[in-house]
């Protein structure tokens, strides 16, 4: 099979959101001697781009996005050791520390963003919901993150986003990390007021913004 056909098969298996199909396509590609990084870059990630576009245009929804992400993650379990074995470079676009602020228990928007980040090639540390502000700061320092992404749905929890930025300033770490904010109660004006590096109205916009910030 020509490489182009192999990559098309890999891409289509992700679009089909079928984990077995993805693993079979990866197995076949490796068997044909295709490099693990090329499998990701030319096969799986283009498939995930299509999934992202379908999600944005409401042709598919969160469950399908999750299925595609789980299939991708299963493939990465096979491929990452092979990249390391061959001494290949890290395939990730950037490192993201993500969570919903202290006092806010809403998770769906944050979960969607996590999936979109992962399917766009970012490495993500999801701290979950109701996250203490120093958890954001400490985790970002620990993993040497590029971006801290903070979600807040409730108007009464917005100030948790400001607090993270203040803590970074107090510690002299503000310039070390980009901070982006989003969530139902946030606005561009709010992001500007607290000195965030960016605001996104949707998860898809957040990923696009993050890609710009790390480029």
């Amino acid at each position, binding site marked *: 099979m020509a490489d182009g056909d192999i990559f098309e098969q890999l891409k289509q298996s992700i679009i089909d959101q079928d984990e077995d199909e993805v693993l079979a396509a990866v197995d076949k590609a490796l068997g044909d001697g295709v490099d693990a990084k090329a499998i990701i870059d030319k096969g799986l990630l283009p498939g995930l781009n299509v999934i992202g576009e379908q*999600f944005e245009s*409401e042709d598919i*929804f*969160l*469950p399908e996005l*999750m*299925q595609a992400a*789980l299939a991708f993650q299963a493939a990465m379990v096979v491929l990452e050791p092979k990249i390391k074995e061959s001494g290949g470079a890290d395939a990730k676009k950037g490192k993201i520390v993500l969570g919903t602020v*202290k*006092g*806010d*228990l*809403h*998770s*769906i*928007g944050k979960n*969607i963003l996590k999936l979109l980040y992962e399917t766009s090639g970012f490495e993500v540390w999801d701290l979950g919901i109701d996250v203490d502000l120093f958890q954001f700061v400490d985790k970002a320092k620990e993993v040497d993150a590029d971006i801290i992404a903070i979600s807040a749905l*409730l*108007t*009464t*929890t*917005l*100030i*948790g986003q400001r607090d993270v930025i203040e803590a970074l300033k107090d510690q002299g770490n503000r310039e070390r990390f980009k901070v982006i904010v989003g969530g*139902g*109660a946030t*606005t561009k004006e709010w992001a500007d007021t607290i000195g965030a590096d960016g605001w996104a*109205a*949707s*998860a*898809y916009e957040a990923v696009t913004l993050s890609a710009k910030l790390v480029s």
Partner: protein
Amino acid sequence: MIDLIEVFDRAETGPLTSETDYYMKRYVPKLAELIARYKIKWDKETIINSDDDLTDRVFQAAVDLLAEAGAYCPETNRVMEFTRDEILTACSECPTKARFGEGRERKSMKGRRPDTTDDRPWVHVGGGIYTTDEQIFVDTVEKMASFSIVDSVSVPSILHLRGKDARVRSPQEVLVACQTVRLAREGIRRSGRAGLPIINGISAASQPASMFAASYPDFGLRPSDGFLIDFLSEMVVGYEALQKVAFYNSISANIGSTSTPLFGGYAGGAEGVAVTATCYMIMGNLIMRGTYHYNAPLHSKLHLSSTKPLIWAIAMSNAAIGRNMGYPMVNLPYLGGGSGTKQYHYEMACYMLAVVTSGGNIFSGHPAMAVQADSLVPDDHKFHAEMGLAAGKLTRAEAEPLAQKLFPLFGDKLKDPDKGLTFQQVYDPRTKRIVNTEYQKNMDEVRDELAGMGLEVPVT
């Protein structure tokens, strides 16, 4: 109906599972299977469904969803399971009216059937939008309560204490919740209708401690008001919600079970939202022991509820419950257009036509996706209640062509909605009369346009 302690026990004894597995192995595949099993399909055009067979299939799917997927308690990591018999018994014993208010204002919100044109739907106005100033808060509530057609109000939220933000779960939040209730009751008293119920208790309280504190009788709320208890993420019943259920059932208060299924989230598209929204109302009765339901499906990206598939799904869930349970319900519209804009009025008219003809009661909507401070302008809400009363004289089939005419007037603007006005920009601060001529002109023109389409909206 199984008793409340047994309901709580289900959160302690159900099967253990992680949240991800609950969604990916139970809820999501079961929902997809039920949509296929019951052949539930939105045709991408209809706004107001009037196919009763489809409506009843949505209800059956909702019953099966709860019976076969259960609800999830994150504190115990257990699935709360209920048998089909337990669910159907609860549906058959569901309250069909909720008694609110005191004295002359004591009335019943009833569960309505679709296409009922000879009753007067309950008229609820207002919203939990936050205000920046306590004087505006009192004036806003007084003005809403003074409209004679109004049966109950939702009151705004105060988020500041001495000019500073009241952080969620802080002691300041407790004080702000108490102050919100005190000022709301004061505003209602000033209208001369002291018994009028507040049924969004308590929008400024995020935690049980704040809700319970503000429920102290001296602050002005009573069991004959309404207390909202919400589900969090899809199908999640957390301990905080169950704590509120325990308390408000212990004082025999009206509980408004509240749900916000997300279009584009775990529920997927229109069909999944219709089934899930219906399921929430079944759970609201069985688990939360509600006397009424706040139905608030929302678009996960646009943060509003006036897209075509969402209006279809919301109306469908109203009809499914109206035909099969009779649980009293209102629908909380989050609209894109700002206060006083034509877009806001068009969205509201389309939404009212859909939900009121499908069995919902009247609830005016949140403008500007509820994020603009001071954007609760009472005369908007009166106008929208009047739209609801006009819609109540129509059947779903009669309302559908009107909704189809209205949708193109705002559909393309939902991604970048028109900005609106604030309370201060509309009213004279002393007389509380409308002084913004553009505001009044917009409203008059929309009223004329609606009449031209065949929907007469009389001024009350």
